[in-house]
C-alpha cells in the first residue's frame, strides 16, 4: 500500500470520527505546549547562564588568558640570539593552525610580560657571578652558563630556614630581591660554579624587547627540590650541562569569543599547540640528558593547567549546574507527557477497536500486518503532528510569559545593569521536533498491545468478532 494512500485512508477515518479526534488533538496541543514551555524555561536558563558566566569570568580578569607558553631550547655551542626567523615562521605556522587559540597576537615574544604574568617568578641566567660581563648586543641577549634559578617570593611558607645572607621579608615581595634554593646552590657547586650571597646576577630577556635587569642574591633557603608553589604553582630550576644556553619565549594570548564556543575543545587545541611547538623546536636537540628537559612539560602543563583551573573548570562547573537545572525541567516535562500520553494512546486503542471490521476486511483482501500498523501509525502521526503544531502556536502565545520569567530571574540573580547584553528566552529548533517524536514514541508504547493484537489476529476471528 502506498504511503499516500495510507494517509488518505487515515484522513478519511479521522474525518469520520471528528469528535474523538478533535478531543485527542486538543489534549495533544495543550500538553505539548506545556511540555515545550517547561523545556523552554530550562533551555533558556541554561543558555543565558552560560553566556553570563562567560562574561563574568572574562570581566574578572585575565584568568583565561594563557599568557605564556615558554619554549625552552637547549642547544650546544651556539651563541644565543633572539628567536630566529625560521623559528618565528614555524611558530606562526603552528599558530595559524590554532588561530582560534592564538587569536591575533600570533607571536608575542615579550618575556617581560611573561614574567609579570608568572607572578614574580622568573628565570635568570648567570655565568661567573663575580666576573660577569655585560654581553648584551643589539640583537638580543646572550646567555652563558651556568643557569641558576631563583625567584622572589610573594609569600614564604612556614618551615623554610635561611642560611647565608638574610631571610626573606614581606617587603621583598615584588622586589628585585633574589633568594636561591640551597639545592640549586649545591648543584651549581657540583657543576663547578660557586654561588654566594651577594653575587650579582643578570636577568636575560630574550625577544624583541630587550631588557636587562640586575639582581643581587640576598640569601639562600633550605627546601626540597621543588619547594614552593606560588603563582604558576611550580618552582622550577634550570641547570645546564652545556656550554651555552639558548632561551626564548613566545607568549600566546587567547581571548575567547563573546558567543558560545567549545572551551574544552579550545583547551585541547591550546594544549596540542604548545606540545606541537615544543616538539618542533626541540627536535633538533638532544634533550634527554639535559636536566632541564622536564621544564618543557612542566611549563606547558603548568600554564595550560592554569588556564583550565581558572576558566575551563569554572565554565565546566557552570555547565554542570545549568545541565542539572535543565534536567529538572526536562523531568517535569517528561512527567507531564507521561501522565497525558495515556489518553492519547486510549484514543488509538478506541480507533483500532471501532475500525476492527474495516481492518478485518482489509486483511481479507490482502492487507498485511505491516500495512495495518502503517494505517494506525499514520492516523496517530496526523493527530500528534497537528496537535503539536497547535501546541507550538500556544507556546508562541506564551512566549512573553517565558521571556518575562527569564528576565526577572536573571535580574534577581544579577542586576541587569551589570550585564552588557540582554537575557531572553529562546526556542531551539529541536524543541517541537523532539516533542512530536516523544509523543509518538510513548503513545505507540502504550497502544502497542492493541495494535499487535489486531495485526496478528486471524482474519476470520477479527471479522467474526464484529459480525
Amino acid at each position, binding site marked *: *500500500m502506498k504511503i499516500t*494512500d495510507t494517509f488518505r485512508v487515515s484522513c478519511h477515518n479521522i474525518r469520520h470520527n471528528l469528535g474523538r479526534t478533535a478531543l485527542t488533538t486538543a489534549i495533544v496541543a495543550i500538553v505539548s505546549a506545556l511540555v515545550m514551555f517547561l523545556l523552554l524555561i530550562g533551555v533558556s536558563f541554561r543558555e543565558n547562564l552560560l553566556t553570563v558566566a562567560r562574561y563574568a569570568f572574562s570581566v574578572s580578569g585575565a584568568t583565561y588568558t594563557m599568557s605564556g607558553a615558554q619554549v625552552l631550547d637547549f642547544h650546544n655551542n651556539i651563541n644565543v640570539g633572539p628567536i630566529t626567523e625560521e623559528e618565528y615562521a614555524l611558530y606562526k605556522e603552528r599558530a595559524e593552525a590554532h588561530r582560534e587559540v592564538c587569536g591575533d597576537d600570533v607571536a608575542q615574544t615579550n618575556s617581560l610580560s611573561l614574567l609579570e604574568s608568572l607572578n614574580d617568578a622568573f628565570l635568570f641566567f648567570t655565568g661567573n657571578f663575580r666576573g660577569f660581563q655585560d654581553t648584551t648586543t643589539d640583537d638580543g641577549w646572550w646567555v652563558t652558563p651556568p643557569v641558576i634559578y631563583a625567584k622572589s617570593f610573594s609569600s614564604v611558607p612556614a618551615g623554610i630556614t635561611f642560611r647565608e645572607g638574610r631571610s626573606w621579608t614581606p617587603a621583598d615581595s615584588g622586589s628585585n630581591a633574589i633568594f636561591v634554593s640551597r639545592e640549586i646552590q649545591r648543584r651549581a657547586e657540583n657543576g663547578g660554579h660557586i654561588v654566594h650571597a651577594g653575587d650579582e646576577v643578570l636577568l636575560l630577556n630574550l625577544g624583541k624587547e630587550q631588557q636587562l635587569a640586575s639582581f643581587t642574591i640576598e640569601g639562600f633557603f633550605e627546601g626540597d627540590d621543588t619547594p614552593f608553589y606560588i603563582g604558576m604553582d611550580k618552582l622550577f630550576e634550570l641547570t645546564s650541562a652545556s656550554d651555552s644556553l639558548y632561551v626564548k619565549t613566545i607568549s600566546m594570548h587567547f581571548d575567547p569569543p563573546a558567543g558560545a564556543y567549545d572551551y574544552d575543545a579550545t583547551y585541547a587545541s591550546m594544549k596540542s599547540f604548545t606540545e606541537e611547538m615544543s616538539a618542533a623546536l626541540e627536535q633538533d636537540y638532544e634533550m634527554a640528558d639535559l636536566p632541564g628537559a622536564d621544564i618543557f612539560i612542566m611549563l606547558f602543563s603548568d600554564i595550560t593547567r592554569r588556564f583550565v583551573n581558572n576558566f575551563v573548570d569554572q565554565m565546566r562547573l557552570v555547565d554542570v549546574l545549568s545541565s542539572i537545572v535543565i534536567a529538572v525541567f526536562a523531568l517535569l516535562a517528561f512527567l507531564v507527557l507521561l501522565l497525558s500520553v495515556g489518553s492519547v494512546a486510549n484514543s488509538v486503542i478506541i480507533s483500532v477497536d471501532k475500525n476492527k471490521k474495516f481492518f478485518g*476486511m482489509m486483511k*481479507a*483482501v490482502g492487507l498485511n500486518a505491516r500495512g495495518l500498523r502503517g494505517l494506525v501509525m499514520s492516523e496517530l502521526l496526523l493527530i500528534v503532528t497537528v496537535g503539536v503544531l497547535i501546541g507550538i502556536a500556544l507556546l508562541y502565545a506564551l512566549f512573553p510569559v517565558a521571556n518575562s520569567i527569564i528576565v526577572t530571574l536573571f535580574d534577581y540573580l544579577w542586576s541587569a545593569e551589570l550585564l552588557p547584553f540582554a537575557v531572553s528566552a529562546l526556542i531551539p529548533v529541536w524543541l517541537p521536533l523532539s516533542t512530536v517524536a516523544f509523543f509518538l514514541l510513548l503513545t505507540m508504547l502504550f497502544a502497542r498491545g492493541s495494535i499487535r493484537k489486531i495485526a496478528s489476529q486471524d*482474519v476470520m476471528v477479527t471479522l467474526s468478532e464484529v459480525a
Partner: protein
Amino acid sequence: MIELRNVNKIYGKGDGAVHALKDVNITVHDGKFTAILGKSGSGKSTLMNIIGALDSPTSGEVFADGKCLTALSQNELAAYRNKTTGFVFQSFYLEPTFTVLENVAMPLIIAGMKRKEREERARAVLEKLGLGDKIKKRASELSGGQKQRVSIARALVHEPSLVLADEPTGNLDSKNGSEVMALLREIADSGKSVVLVTHNHADAACADEVIFLKDGVAAMRGPLLPGEDPYGG
C-alpha cells in the same frame, strides 16, 4: 486448481476442542463453479476460509496450482489473497463511510495501484454490474442487493482467478438472491473458479460440482440433480 490433502481443522484444545474438518481431501478445479453444501455447523465456512487462505489448517496441506499455501507466512498469504482471490461475504463487509468506488477499489489500493488506474478499473466493474450510477454514493446508502453487488465488484476488481462467496444470499430477499446467484454463475462462465458456501441446496444447484459436508467430513460429487435434496428430505 486448489487441492486439499488430509486437511484437519481443530478449534480449541483438550476436552473442549472442536474438530471442524476431518481429513478433508478435495479439489477445486479451475474454471468450475464449486458449491460447498452443508448444514449449519458442518464446517463449510471453515473449509472456504482454508481454500481462500484466510485460515490455516491444523494439519494437512493446501496447494494452489502446485504451490503449498500452508508453507507461506502470513504476509505471503496476504499477498496471495490480494492477487488471486476475491471474497464475497454474507455481511458484505463494506466500509459504510467510503463511497462505492472506494470500497470496490480497496484491493487495488492495497496492491499499490495508482489512483487513476484503479478508479478506472473499479468504475468499469461497477458499470458491468449495473452500478455505474451509484459510484459516488456511500455504501450505507445502498440496498442489501446493491451492497452485495458492490461486494462482488470488489471481489472481481483485481481480476482474481478464484472467487469465494460465503452465504452471499443469506441476508437478501429471494429476488436479490437470485440475481446474485446469476451473477456468480456468469463469473464462473467467464472462466474464473467460483466457490460458493451455502446451506441452501437451491443455490448449490447452480454449481458444477458440489462438496457435501457433514460433521466435518467432506465428500465430492457432481452437480445436484434437479429437485434433489442432498439432506435426504
